[in-house]
């Protein structure tokens, strides 16, 4: 097979995959991270992580691509959060919530456990079905229902404590 034509085809496929998924992934990353530049970092990392083992012409793009990309973005975002926390702990300036109620609510969401945060974002912000969430997270639907309930109750308690509810 001609190497250049193979490369061209791969390039076109990569462009198509980026075009299809960058919007939803950036939105998801933004909801976790609350920062545009970090969200771009996370999505870039996710795509590069993906290309590592999934470039065979025959099986790309493939069935679970979306779920895999969301997982990769989540992992990248979690890594970035830890780094961000480490930087903040060293005393550098990282913008925190300004005290507006909406920002306070989002701060509460971002302070949930990663699993809870993931479920809240998918279910409430992205309005994905339990089945879609199950495919992405690998949790069964029963677990998702319970976790969502616990997360919402936890958020409600924190909102009450903050005087927002």
């Amino acid at each position, binding site marked *: 097979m001609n190497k250049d034509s193979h*490369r061209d085809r*791969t*390039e076109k*496929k*990569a*462009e198509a995959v*980026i075009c299809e998924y*960058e*919007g939803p992934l*950036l*939105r998801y*990353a*933004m*909801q976790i991270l*609350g920062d*545009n530049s970090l*969200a*771009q970092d996370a*999505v*870039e990392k996710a*795509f*590069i992580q993906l*290309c*590592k083992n999934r*470039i065979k012409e025959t099986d790309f793009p493939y069935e679970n691509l979306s779920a895999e990309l969301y997982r990769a973005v989540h992992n990248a975002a979690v890594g970035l959060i830890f780094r961000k926390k480490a930087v903040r702990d060293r005393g550098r300036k990282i913008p925190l919530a300004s005290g*507006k*109620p*909406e*920002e306070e*609510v*989002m701060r509460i*969401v971002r302070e949930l456990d990663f699993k809870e945060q993931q479920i*809240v974002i998918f*279910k*409430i*912000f992205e309005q994905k*079905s*339990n*089945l879609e969430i199950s495919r992405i997270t690998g949790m069964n*639907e*029963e677990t998702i*229902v*319970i976790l*969502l*309930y616990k997360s*919402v*109750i936890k*958020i*409600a308690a924190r*909102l009450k404590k903050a005087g*927002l*509810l």
Partner: protein
Amino acid sequence: MSEDKTNGEPRSEKKIMRCEDIQPLLFDYMSRELGEGRAAIVREHLRKCKTCQVVAKDIQATLDLLHTASKAEPKQTERLTDKRRKKIVWAFTHPVMSWMAKHMFFISVIAAIITIISVAAFMRFMLEKHFAPIKGKPITVIIVNRGQTNMIQETSNIQSEVQQRP
């Protein structure tokens, strides 16, 4: 979104009537994602149970706040920057190079180890070639020493033989 509408239907109605069984379903009930059978059970329970009514009210208020907060978030860019896109496409078309670029530290360490081993092996080879005792079949060497002729024969180590002679 009906995938989970019938999931869990096998649960008996008696069991599902408990508050702790009803409350996790409130979210799906309020967003009309619950199958009709379970929705009817939740509706019926909510009509009678004050505790679950309070929980449902809290959940609804929380959801409203979450939706408002989500809409008020700074608008995220819908596209990756051109620089990042190029980087990703390059990684797709050059997977090996991309891997190497990502694992530069690891590769550097491996390369350094290989270099050290190669240099050590080469030096050992050179030392053995020039200075090590000659091994192999015995040979005959004639040494002319102060007018005398000495002969070394049938030895396996010429150097030690020479050193033994005055």
